[in-house]
């Protein structure tokens, strides 16, 4: 028999995140996916509007405020880009790890460690500004990479779950940073004579801060943005065209076949995990030297978590991560304008989470649908009726 019964697709983790190569050219599946996505985004927006309304706000005002704060003028755009850069860097790292089939969710911690190491270098290293800045950023990347490297080492020597170890290490990272900024011998500020030293580091001197081009209120573009965009282009090309990218994909989609083809998972997958941590660490360095200028326990400000969400929405494609990061950056900068409308800025977190769902659910749903059409009768339990599955998304306890 040359036509076997179509078995339900085997879908390793990576394919959930990367998407299937078959979707590259828009076929009926792609159109269906796009359709469902539009629908889901509309539902997400509807839910957000509902939330605004029950909190006594006006959805129109909220949209207006978000818009004003983010993209209505050059100042807004500047802020949006400042927010987007670290999100994008974190997302790029997540793309690499996801492609390799190792799911790193500890970017928040890796970012913190990166910021800490970068801060240490910036405050202790003497030398010409540009050299210190470069070394500090590289050190930040090393810091983040080392932190995710712990998970990589645990995974490839002992087989411990990467998701769990990166998650747990995030909380340890937070305490490491706490310790650093509470220890005068490490990074705690020397104190300006007035009052007790607070749990934060000294400010990075003026000449070590990342340059930005343009002058307020014109559009300003920081070095962080440029680094992130260049990294995106390079990574997009490498993932799509290079031998390294080919091997990463192979490892993520079928580790056994990859090994048969001569790929050492511990080396390639481990380096992917380290690299993803390094990108998060670099993001930490960019935040430190670009916007916050001193190490604080809250310096990560959820950039790690949100960057990971950006990668999920972008389905691990750097090219898509760029616009998504800008969108999430715009939501962030817009949120500071929400206060005037009386709607809590936490709305933005809700919207982001709903957006992620709206982009993650449709491809899966669409594949399920396609299979159902192919084998008309449902297999006993597994596939849900699409009509039953879609509302599941809305059962969010509001």
């Amino acid at each position, binding site marked *: 028999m040359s036509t076997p019964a179509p*078995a*339900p*697709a085997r*879908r390793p*983790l990576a394919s*959930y*995140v990367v998407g299937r190569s078959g979707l590259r050219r828009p076929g009926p599946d792609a159109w269906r996916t796009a359709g469902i996505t539009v629908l889901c985004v509309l539902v997400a927006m509807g839910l957000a509007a509902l*939330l605004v309304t*029950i*909190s*006594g706000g006006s959805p129109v005002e909220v949209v207006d405020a978000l818009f004003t704060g983010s993209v209505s003028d050059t100042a807004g755009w500047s802020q949006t880009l400042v927010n987007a850069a670290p999100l994008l860097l974190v997302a790029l790292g997540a793309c690499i790890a996801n492609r390799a089939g190792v*799911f790193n*969710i500890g970017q928040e911690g890796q970012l913190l460690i990166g910021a800490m190491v970068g801060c240490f270098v910036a405050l202790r290293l003497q030398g010409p500004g540009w050299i210190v800045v470069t070394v500090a950023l590289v050190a930040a990347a090393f810091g983040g990479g080392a932190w995710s490297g712990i998970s990589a080492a*645990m995974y490839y020597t*002992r*087989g*411990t*779950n990467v*998701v*769990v*170890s990166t*998650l*747990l*290490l995030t*909380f*340890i990272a937070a*305490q*490491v940073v*706490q*310790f650093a900024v*509470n220890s005068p011998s490490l990074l705690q500020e020397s104190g300006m004579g007035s009052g007790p030293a607070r749990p934060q580091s000294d400010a990075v001197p003026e000449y070590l801060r990342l340059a930005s081009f343009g002058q307020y209120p014109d559009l300003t573009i920081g070095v962080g943005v440029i680094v992130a965009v260049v990294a995106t282009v390079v990574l997009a090309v490498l993932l799509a065209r290079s031998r390294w990218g080919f091997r990463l994909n192979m490892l993520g989609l079928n580790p056994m076949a990859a090994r048969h083809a001569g790929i050492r998972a511990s080396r390639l997958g481990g380096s992917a995990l380290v690299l993803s941590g390094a990108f998060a660490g670099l993001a930490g360095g960019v935040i430190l030297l670009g916007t916050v200028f001193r190490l604080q326990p809250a310096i990560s400000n959820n950039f790690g*978590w949100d960057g990971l*969400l950006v990668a*999920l929405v972008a389905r691990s494609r750097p090219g898509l991560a760029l616009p998504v990061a800008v969108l999430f950056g715009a939501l962030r900068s817009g949120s500071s304008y929400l206060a005037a409308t009386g*709607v*809590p800025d*936490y*709305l933005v*977190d*809700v919207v*982001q*989470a*709903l957006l*992620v*769902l709206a982009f*993650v659910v449709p491809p*899966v749903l669409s594949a*399920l649908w396609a299979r159902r059409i192919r084998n008309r009768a449902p*297999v*006993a*339990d*597994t596939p*849900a009726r699409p009509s*039953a*599955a879609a509302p*599941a*998304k809305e*059962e*969010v*306890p509001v």
Partner: protein
Amino acid sequence: MWLDDGGTVLASALRLTAPLAFAACGEYLAERAGTLNISVEGMMLSGAFGAVAVGSATGSPTVGLFAGAVVGLLVALVHANLSHRIQINTFVVGLVINTLVLGLTSFLLQTMEFSRTQVGMLRIPGLAEIPLLGVLFEQRWPFYLLLLVVPLTWFLVNRTRWGLELRAVGENPQAADVSGIKVNVRRRQALMWCGLMSGLGGAFLSVGLVGSFNSNMTAGRGFIVIAAVIFGAWRLKGTLLGCFLFGAADALRLALPSLGVELNPQLLVAAPYLLALAVMVLMAKSQREPRALSKPFERGLV
């Protein structure tokens, strides 16, 4: 003197253990069925919020407590359907749910007014007088629900057919499927139990211990619960021991300044995570972990 201090620390440790223990009963059961549920944090947080919201609206913290459990269940329903019905990666779902719940509860907290609402103490006369251990018998009453929930969880997993099927599903879903067990139904049900218990744990935290809700009040306790299950090597006894250890570490951190003892507070906060990581590394080859943990099941997939 040390006895008093000891009693105080122990009392505080017990209070901090209880929310963990409730949620751990749920997480333990879910993991035995093969779901490494990272949204337990979101379930606890939503339970804590739901309890205060309903408790304050109805004026009855008891109603609030159970409402909190139900809210946890609703969150579990979302997670279960997304990950074990339409088969989205369970970690992605968990991540999003945690973000969503954190955002939503913080948002609602700022748009609503809640009155204080707290359940009463239950002091068992006589026993509460015992030095040191007396604190066991002077707790907010839902604390004693643990006496019901823990044995019940153990019984469900180890003595019922449902539990046998859960374990089968967590170890080898393909074989369970051909034996006629509805794998994804069982996994969804296990998550329901996890949601119920986590909601209860979160509710105990808010209407039991604190009496109000504040933003992100679970503060990573859900992740400590995951650490506890790993620490306990997927056995209930070990899991509960882990909860107590981690609760005690938390209590010590709070008590140290007043006791005048020098111990690094950051180390104590990080202790649960460090211990869990250490156990993961040491126990990696012991094969106690359910073999299909966090592996999705679809029929026809080998």
